[in-house]
């Protein structure tokens, strides 16, 4: 509420400043996980699908400016809870657990969870599933239902990955929503869908518990759209499009090369999909570059504080703080740090996600850099400091002119290694819905239902950058060695 007020004030003041009389409308932020066709997916860099279409229509009628934020499915409900989004529309099934966290609108779809198996499978119904390997998309109703009623499933980040695992023989069955399930079996002729649904469920939109007004508005619009038949028209339209697309993409199997070429065309050339990789690569480089710079600055300061405390006994309090920082950062996974910084620390601030990632990775990398540099400082012979001090140089002067240049040179290989690790670690940026290189692969996969090509492309790009970095570091090291 406060946020909306602030936005309004900001817009108002901007309007006043520019003096243009253009009427500004309030913003409505929809959060979704655009990897769930036909409900939501990315098409020509735009998020499209059943959910965006319905919400767009409602926003239009209510006079909101719609903004759609893409993120992981596990984050969608949390985003509404913390106020990062106003409405979650992501093919969300209504469950008792979720009802405790958010309010649901009227259902707009009754969906079913179905079972996909290989064409040759002997499975005939859900009773056969008990002892088998079942794949689901993490955080979906299928996940919850299978876990509660059948057995622990294997959880994948999205449905395409689960289907790829099924095709690779790593799973015996995949439990998934009926619509995407139908798309998958159309696309992959070696798969079939069991007609009897595992369970059926209702899809609805989720809204923050405190926002009763929006709930009422959306429900009224939904009711009207149902009565006018507009709702089912939208849903039918997208289902038909998805099926047509799947049929078009159906692979014609003849020979490895033409298969490869066809798949290459589909994954990278068609619809300019290579743009996802290019843009994602840009984001990955951007985050890595700035995180390295700030990480080194943080690490450098922490290392000097720690080394000074060890050598002289001074800076006790700062040293304590640094040790807490090192313990916490090195003792927790970077994914968790990223999520905490995004959802908790900047939970109620409207801040650029790239900036959040730079901050999180800088803080994380700083801890490792600090310990590397501290090791470098401690490895310098004590006699160097004594020689500096005996000449009348101060501690700081000796540190700066004599110790640090030697220490940095000694730890250069370790630092270079840390940068390489950092570059690869940024691949988790997708957790806060950043479209980095890894996420770009996910997006392509969610459109083409092909796991191999996008993953290989992503892997090759990372590999190329890492090899280039290693080569540059080697050259730098050799040049510095010349002075010895």
């Amino acid at each position, binding site marked *: 509420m406060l946020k909306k007020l602030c936005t309004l004030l900001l817009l108002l003041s901007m309007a006043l400043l520019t003096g243009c009389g253009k009427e500004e409308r309030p913003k409505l932020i929809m959060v979704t996980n655009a990897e769930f066709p036909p409900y939501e997916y990315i098409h020509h860099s735009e998020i499209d699908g059943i959910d965006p279409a319905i919400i767009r229509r409602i926003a239009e009628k209510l006079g909101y400016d719609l903004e759609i934020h893409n993120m992981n499915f596990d984050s969608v409900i949390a985003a509404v809870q913390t106020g990062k989004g106003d409405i979650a529309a992501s093919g969300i099934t209504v469950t008792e657990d979720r009802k405790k966290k958010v309010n649901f609108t009227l259902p707009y779809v009754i969906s079913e969870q179905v079972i996909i198996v290989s064409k040759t499978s002997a499975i005939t119904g859900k009773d056969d599933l008990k002892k088998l390997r079942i794949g689901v998309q993490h955080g979906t109703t299928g996940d919850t239902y299978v876990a509660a009623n059948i057995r622990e499933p294997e959880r994948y980040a999205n449905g395409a990955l689960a289907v790829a695992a099924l095709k690779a023989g790593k799973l015996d069955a995949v439990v998934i929503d009926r619509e995407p399930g139908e798309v998958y079996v159309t696309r992959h002729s070696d798969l079939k869908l069991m007609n009897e649904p595992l369970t059926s469920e209702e899809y609805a939109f989720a809204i923050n518990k405190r926002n009763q007004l929006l709930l009422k508005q959306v429900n009224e619009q939904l009711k009207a759209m149902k009565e006018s038949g507009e709702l089912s028209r939208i849903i039918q339209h997208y289902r038909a499009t998805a099926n047509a697309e799947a049929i078009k993409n159906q692979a014609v199997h003849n020979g490895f090369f033409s298969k490869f070429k066809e798949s290459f065309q589909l994954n990278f050339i068609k619809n300019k999909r290579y743009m996802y990789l290019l843009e994602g690569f840009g984001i990955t480089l951007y985050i890595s570059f700035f995180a390295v710079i700030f990480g080194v600055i943080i690490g450098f300061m922490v290392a000097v504080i720690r080394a000074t405390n060890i050598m002289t006994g001074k800076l006790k309090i700062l040293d304590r703080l640094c040790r807490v920082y090192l313990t916490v950062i090195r003792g927790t996974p970077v994914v968790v740090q990223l999520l905490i910084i995004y959802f908790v620390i900047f939970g109620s601030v409207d801040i650029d996600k790239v900036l959040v990632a730079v901050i999180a990775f800088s803080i994380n990398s700083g801890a490792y850099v600090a310990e590397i540099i501290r090791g470098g400082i401690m490895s310098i012979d004590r006699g160097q400091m004594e*020689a500096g001090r*005996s*000449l009348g*140089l101060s501690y700081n002067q000796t540190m700066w*002119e*004599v110790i640090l*240049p030697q220490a940095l040179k000694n730890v250069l290989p370790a630092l270079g290694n840390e940068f390489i690790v950092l570059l690869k670690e940024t691949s988790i940026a997708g957790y806060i819905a950043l479209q980095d290189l890894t996420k770009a692969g996910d997006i392509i996969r969610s459109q083409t239902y092909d796991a191999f090509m996008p993953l290989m492309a992503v892997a090759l790009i990372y590999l190329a950058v890492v090899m280039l970095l290693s080569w540059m570091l080697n050259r730098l090291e050799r040049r510095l060695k010349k*002075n*010895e």
Partner: protein
Amino acid sequence: MSDIVFDIRDLVKDFDGLKAVNGASTTIKRGEAVFIVGPSGSGKSTFLRCLILLETPDDGDIIFDGKSILDGRIKLNKFRQKVGMVFQHFNLFPNLTIRENITLAPVKTRQMTLTQAREKADALLKRIGLYEKRHAYPAQLSGGQKQRVAIVRALAMNPEVLLFDEPTSALDPEMVGEVLSLMKELASEGMTMVVVTHEIGFAAEVADRLIFMDHGKIVAEGPVKAIMENPDNERIKEFFSKVL
């Protein structure tokens, strides 16, 4: 300036119960070359390091130029600019060239401008015949060359006194001579020096006074000949019989 550079009174340095220096008293006069000898572990290095406060004494007092350096009122860095130290392992700065090693301290402590410091460094390097090496790095020098550079690095600060802690112990035998002859030159020019060494022959030649230390105490002090020829103590006799 007074005649006495260091007046050391009942100096004690305690390393967790081990008294490395245990009540040593002596004076170092201006222009004097004082040599300290004694068995290994007798506290010679610790004594010397106390004089430039690389170790903080636990008891006693050190008067430098008439003022105590232990009452907490001196400016430590200013004091150390007046006392030079030469280490067993040279401790040149490997990240700097030979000339930068020499100019770093005079420039950073604002004793000289960079140009002045370079002039001074060049003159000192010419004196020891290493002017051609001024842009080389320490790793490119022999041990004897390194130690001579370390000596002129200390000299560049125009110290009142130079401390040497076994300056030739880490050198190959053929390089000892060049370092000793530079030290001898300095002594003959009237440089105040305190030298810890095992080179008894060199001490006999150069020292104005010899100090013999054992178990952290000064057990004999006086002209070299007198101590060597009339050792009034079994430990001294034993020591000289071993090193000669």
